[in-house]
């Protein structure tokens, strides 16, 4: 009796396992059928969850789909979520047909074999600005088209500068900027706010100073690199920048500037709409280099890419959709909505014609550099993390700028 019970138990377990396997098998089979169907809508993933189905962006996607003769299905993801979502989807053979993703992620996805190069998808990239497209290039191939670019510059509060007796036009290099900050502090106002948080945002904000010193990402602990970190560290020590920058995101940093107490804020193109609402007069100057000139700021903004599909016949339609999205008229509309600078000179000129205040940003974008450019590609993330850790260590006083960057170079070279 006992042994028969046990036997039945084993049989039962085996049957259950079989049933499970059956369910799994059935699932994958039906999945195959669905992907083979011709009427499958074209999936588009973007990092703009702020736009709902009734937005102009959604309407544009639908229209571009209709023009290409297909229906599109759009999903908006949080930008920090999208890289892993895209990797997982590729692993499951479920990649979207068009993927719009933050530019430094392109090289990672390309390295993973998730994206098609322009050789395969036949996208035309001739009109795009070379410094912008460089973020999407690795190993001599181009894996996407920029849909818009943004970058960093210094916003300043006109009233605060006037009160402190500082002329914004006189700020040409680091010493003149630091001198201006000292005057602002002496006048009882706060100097500058930026974001030095321990994420990619922190590296993004530090890079204009790092590059502006003449340093290269391949050698973090060069004397130039140390001088850039020394500049930030000294600002904190002197009280020119608040201690909270160590935990500031670009949004919280902007909120500090919006209080009206700060003379300067390092922030991006995307804050223009908020700047107009801030309730005080503001101006914008480019981030200065160590001894003059405009420091190259990193380019932000997204790329439109065409992920690898088993059904390669879909590429031509996907390419039509991408070409539609990045056509001159549509770029103008999209970049105006996103508060981005267009990636082509033709559209940039139209943007300036619409709003002359954008000229400073167009110039900044022209001077900007891709983070994954210079053939760094997937090496960039391995440099960026030690870099933001070094910035945090130096600003919080845990290490000297020199020691922090030496440790960072050691970690990056591993």
């Amino acid at each position, binding site marked *: 009796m006992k042994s028969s019970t046990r036997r*039945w138990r084993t049989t039962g377990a085996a049957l259950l396992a079989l049933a499970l396997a059956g369910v799994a098998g059935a699932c994958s089979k039906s999945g195959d059928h669905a992907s083979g169907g011709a009427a499958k809508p074209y999936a588009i993933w973007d990092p703009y969850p702020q736009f709902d189905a009734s937005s102009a962006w959604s309407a544009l996607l639908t229209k571009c789909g209709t023009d290409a003769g297909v229906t599109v299905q759009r999903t908006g993801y949080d930008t920090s979520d999208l890289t892993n979502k895209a*990797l997982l989807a590729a692993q499951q053979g479920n990649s979207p047909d068009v993927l719009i993703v933050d530019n430094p992620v392109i090289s990672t996805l390309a390295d993973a074999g998730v994206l098609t190069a322009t050789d395969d998808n036949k996208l035309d990239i001739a009109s795009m600005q070379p410094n912008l497209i460089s973020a999407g290039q690795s190993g001599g191939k181009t894996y996407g088209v920029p849909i818009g670019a943004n970058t960093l510059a210094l916003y300043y509060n006109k009233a605060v500068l006037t009160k402190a007796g500082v002329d914004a036009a006189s700020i040409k290099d680091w010493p003149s900027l630091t001198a201006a900050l000292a005057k602002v502090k002496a006048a009882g106002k706060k100097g500058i706010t930026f974001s030095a*948080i321990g994420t990619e945002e922190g590296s993004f904000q530090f890079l204009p100073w790092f590059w502006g010193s003449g340093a290269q990402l391949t050698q973090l602990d060069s004397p130039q690199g140390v001088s850039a970190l020394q500049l930030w560290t000294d600002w904190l020590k002197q009280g020119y920048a608040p201690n909270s920058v*160590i935990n500031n995101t670009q949004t919280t940093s902007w909120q500090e500037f919006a209080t009206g107490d700060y003379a300067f804020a390092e922030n991006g193109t995307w804050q223009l709409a908020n700047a107009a609402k801030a309730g005080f007069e503001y101006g914008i100057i480019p981030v200065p280099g160590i001894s003059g000139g405009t420091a190259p700021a990193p380019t932000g903004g997204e790329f439109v890419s065409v992920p690898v599909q088993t059904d390669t016949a879909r590429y031509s339609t996907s390419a039509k959709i991408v070409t539609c999205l990045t056509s001159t008229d549509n770029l103008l509309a999209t970049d105006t909505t996103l508060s981005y600078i267009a990636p082509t000179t033709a559209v940039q000129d139209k943007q300036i014609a619409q709003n002359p205040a954008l000229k400073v940003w167009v110039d900044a974008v022209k001077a900007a550099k891709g983070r994954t450019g210079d053939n760094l590609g997937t090496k960039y993330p391995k440099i960026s993390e030690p870099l933001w850790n070094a910035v945090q260590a130096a*600003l919080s006083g845990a290490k000297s700028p020199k020691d922090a960057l030496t440790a960072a170079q050691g970690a990056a070279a591993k």
Partner: protein
Amino acid sequence: MTRSARGGQWTAWAFAAPVVLYLVAFYAYPLYRNLDLSLRDYTVRSFVRGDAPFSGSDNYTKVVQDPTFGPALLHTVIFTLGSLAFQFTLGMALAVFFVQHFPLSGMLRALFLVPWLLPLIVSASTWSWMLNSDSGIVNWALGLVGIGPVNWLTSPSWSLTSVIIANIWIGIPFNLVVLYSGLQAISPEIYEAAALDGATGRQRFWRITLPLLRPVSAITLLLGLVYTLKVFDIIWIMTKGGPADSSTTFATWSYRLGFGNLLPSFGPGAAVGNLLIVIALIFGLIYIRRQRS
């Protein structure tokens, strides 16, 4: 006889099937996948293709030799023990306090539950505003009594303390509720008898309440330990584990390895996650052992 027994077995399996399916799909398989991730050398390319080479304990060696390992382990221990000690004593004190019913005690007790009910994103953001170096209310209050500002979240010597304080605040209600219900299960007659024998309040607590509450205390501490070990959101929202790793625990480190970088390192991330599971498992086994003896 046999036929009906067979039928009974089938019915039994049919009843067990949903829970077995559930356990396999949501516990066994993810655990297996995590173990598999930690034993392979994953790059983004091999993650997508699913052809990562088996690398044995390489990821574990890499993680243990990482300069972050020592500090992260130490912070995990300090964070867990510090949080548990304060959550438990304060929870116990409040539970004993609320056992004596007084006007409005029910409402006050309900108010103490607020930290437990708030979404963590709300409480952690609130804490990080309050502890902001420049505009936080805590530094403002300290300034009123003449103490200079403390860089709660941005100084390497304070950040761990700050996240522990926030975590204690969040954990007190849980301890309060469980211990309070444990206290109510102790028969009042024992206290009456003790009072007749002339026991003081202090003696009643140490000689009656605490010993009789031992089983409840043990499970409260074990659950608290498991919760605290894996606390991630509070630390991530308040400090991101920084500055300079000063508040990095295994939980935040595992996340940072797997998701915090543009180029994810899934293998080492999974390895750190598995170490956390093992630590929790060890304490669970110790608990079961002690329950049996």
